[in-house]
């Protein structure tokens, strides 16, 4: 509550007024009338130009799309619907996983560059991965192929001309057989002719039984009337023959209208010489597809490749082509893989050079033969030929192996010691030589090891049993083999030791020999012992060949290179510091 003010101090009130009106006087002026007058109004009319507002219409009628369509034939598309096998079956067959987990490996069949039409290219591109095809076709394998082998099969399958040039031991045979098997299944080929060197016929039989057991096979053999019947017979899809027989049946082949959907040449370097009878007969056979298998498409010179291409695609290659252009030209036809690139887990090759000194007796004989030989060659003057030089080289090389007078051999001493060790450790070894006579001498000298022999003097019918015995008999540790008979197509991967008692002219042939043992399935490192007599012709040849070995790979890797890979005439004459006679040429040894 507020306190009341004291009543004794209340103010007194008084009132007063004041006049606040201000007088206004109006003066007249000339504006008065004008102010009273009403304003004059006027109107302007405008017309609207557009009766309605602007409008933009967008039509969304469905667009008519341009389409392209491709329909595939029932056979090519696999119309014969087989009930898909179960995953368990797939697993039993050892095929690639059928579940989506198996997606890590998908090998596509790519159309070759010479397939031009879009629909044909799409036909290949739209096929399932190779692994799926093999799986769905219930194609069993004795073992799981390597990824690079799938690639090789996918390479061959769509091609009408192809070279499978994998290094020896990578399974060219298996890849070719599987591609053939698929083409037969798809109905794309119905007749196949396989030509191989005679010693390899049984090998192909075995491989077919292993990789395509359901494919009927006919090996052409026997008397002429029987062979005639075999050639004309059409029920068996795959015929196997050898080059020698093909030449013998030349007349029959030329006079018949035989045609094969596919012709496969194994060791196709056999037709490298275009003018040879073998090449002519092979090229004369009617065929739709041509495949060549070889680990050495260029054995001596690029001429070899030209020779093989005359079978594959006549006229498309010439020896005069600049190497880079040639490499580009052949690129789509050739597939080549080497072990070091595709097989990480393949045991290594261990090279060991056994440089030995000739025994005194060998030394004496060698010097005498060399001096006498060079004198003889010099006396021939312009009449000297490459054959004369060759004869001297061969004579000297033979002395390096064995002294013809005393039978002494510096190499044998070392070899015998090594082989004793091999046998003692329960291992197996192959000894290569270019001469049967040398191998026979070794057989006598190493009799305590009971070596087996495999060369041109061993009857064809006995060769398979020799190999079987070598493989299966634990007491057989040594196989004496000639380069000619044993350099191609044989699988001796159970051997861990290879001895090159003498050296071949060509590094590619030596590689082939070594790769009999160093291939898929090799249990351990393969030790290669290369014998070389110091201060002899062997040493001089080796120096030249070391350069050649590097060139071999360079050609196939599309590098600039010289033409010849073997020893040229110039190089052979150079071994004895001889002048090459005037007529030019560069035949390779």
């Amino acid at each position, binding site marked *: 509550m507020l306190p009341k003010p004291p009543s004794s101090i209340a103010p007194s009130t008084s009132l007063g007024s004041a006049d606040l009106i201000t007088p206004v006087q109006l003066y007249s002026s000339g504006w008065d009338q004008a102010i009273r007058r009403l304003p004059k109004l006027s109107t302007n009319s405008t017309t609207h130009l557009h009766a309605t507002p602007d409008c933009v219409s*967008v039509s*969304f009628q*469905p*667009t008519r*799309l*341009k*389409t*392209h*369509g*491709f*329909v*595939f*034939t*029932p056979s*090519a*598309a*696999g*119309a014969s*619907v*087989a*009930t*898909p096998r179960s*995953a368990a079956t797939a697993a039993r067959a050892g095929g690639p996983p*059928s*579940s*989506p*987990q*198996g*997606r890590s490996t*998908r090998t*596509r069949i790519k159309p070759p560059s010479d397939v031009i039409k*879009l*629909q*044909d*290219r*799409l*036909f290949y*591109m*739209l*096929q*399932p*991965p190779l692994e*799926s095809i093999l799986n*769905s076709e219930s194609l069993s394998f004795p073992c799981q192929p390597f990824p690079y082998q799938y690639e090789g099969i996918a390479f061959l399958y769509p091609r009408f001309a192809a070279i499978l040039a994998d290094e020896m031991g990578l399974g060219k045979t298996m890849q070719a057989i599987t591609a053939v098997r698929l083409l037969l299944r798809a109905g794309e080929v119905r007749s196949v002719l396989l030509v191989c060197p005679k010693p390899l016929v049984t090998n192909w039989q075995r491989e077919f039984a292993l990789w395509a057991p359901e494919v009927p096979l006919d090996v052409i053999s026997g008397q002429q009337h029987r062979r005639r019947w075999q050639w004309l017979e059409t029920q068996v899809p795959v015929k196997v023959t050898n080059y020698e027989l093909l030449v013998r049946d030349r007349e029959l082949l030329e006079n018949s209208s035989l045609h094969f959907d596919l012709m496969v040449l194994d060791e196709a370097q056999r037709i490298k010489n275009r003018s040879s009878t073998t090449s002519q007969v092979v090229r004369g056979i009617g065929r739709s597809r041509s495949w060549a298998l070889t680990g050495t498409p260029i054995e001596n010179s690029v001429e070899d490749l030209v020779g093989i291409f005359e079978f594959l695609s006549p006229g498309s290659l010439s020896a005069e082509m600049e190497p880079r252009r040639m490499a580009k030209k052949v690129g789509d036809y050739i597939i080549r893989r080497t072990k070091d690139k595709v097989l990480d887990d393949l045991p290594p090759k261990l090279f060991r050079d056994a440089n030995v000194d000739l025994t005194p007796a060998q030394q004496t004989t060698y010097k005498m033969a060399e001096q006498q030989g060079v004198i003889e060659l010099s006396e021939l003057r312009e009449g000297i030929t490459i054959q004369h030089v060759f004869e001297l080289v061969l004579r000297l090389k033979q002395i390096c192996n064995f002294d013809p007078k005393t039978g002494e051999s510096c190499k044998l001493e070392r070899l015998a010691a090594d082989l004793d060790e091999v046998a003692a450790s329960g291992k197996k070894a192959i000894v290569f030589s270019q001469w049967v006579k040398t191998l026979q001498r070794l057989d006598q000298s190493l009799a305590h090891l009971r070596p087996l022999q495999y060369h041109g003097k061993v009857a064809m019918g006995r060769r398979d049993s020799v190999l079987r015995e070598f493989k299966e008999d634990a007491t057989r540790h040594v196989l004496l083999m000639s380069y000619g008979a044993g350099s191609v197509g044989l699988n001796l991967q159970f051997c861990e030791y290879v001895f090159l008692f003498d050296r071949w002219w060509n590094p590619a042939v030596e590689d082939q020999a070594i790769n009999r043992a160093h291939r898929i399935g090799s249990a351990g490192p393969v030790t290669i012992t290369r014998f070389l007599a110091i201060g002899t012709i062997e040493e001089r040849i080796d120096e030249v060949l070391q350069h050649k070995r590097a060139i071999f790979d360079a050609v196939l890797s599309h590098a600039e290179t010289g033409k010849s890979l073997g020893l040229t005439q110039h190089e052979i004459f150079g071994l004895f510091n001889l002048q090459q006679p005037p007529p030019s040429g560069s035949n390779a040894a």
Partner: protein
Amino acid sequence: MLSRQPAMEPTVGFLTVIEKDGAGWLGGYLVLNQRARPVEFHCTAPIKPNRAQEILYGPTLRPFVYGEQIGTTLIQKAKSKPQLIFTDTAPAMSARDLIKTPIGLVGLPTAKQPSEPGDINTSHRLDGAHSTTLSEPHWVYVQLGENEITLQPQHADDQALIVRHWTEMELQLDLSEPFERVHQALAEAYQDA
């Protein structure tokens, strides 16, 4: 090698659409038999939506072009009538609204894949304005072997149908694999065009 007579057998279709920079959108449709062998292949020429379509269709543009235009055209062009159709791109699933065959998306819809018309939520504000947003759809999932398949919610009945056909055909396909083929074929055809 080629014929105009398609095999009348159970088949499976694989539909895809790719966007080529600067060229436009391409559709590819591959029909396989039970053994995964090609029976038919169809593809479209590239098409380019114009600016007006991009603005006015907004987020529904791809479902419209992928599914209703490209997808439906390709499926109808094929002579084979597959029991099942798979796609690897979610917008193409809208073709299912126009055809009777079940269409499944292989895998799960990813954030990058634009959704489809049925997934658009429209909300209204008090002032009369409205906004359109995309929401997470209620996908239907089904497992076919090792493959995870997504189906549209409005075609939930497809779930039973797709499983039945898959089982009857005894398919053992990795459903992502045929799309590799279609993509390669489109690249080849486009290069050729």
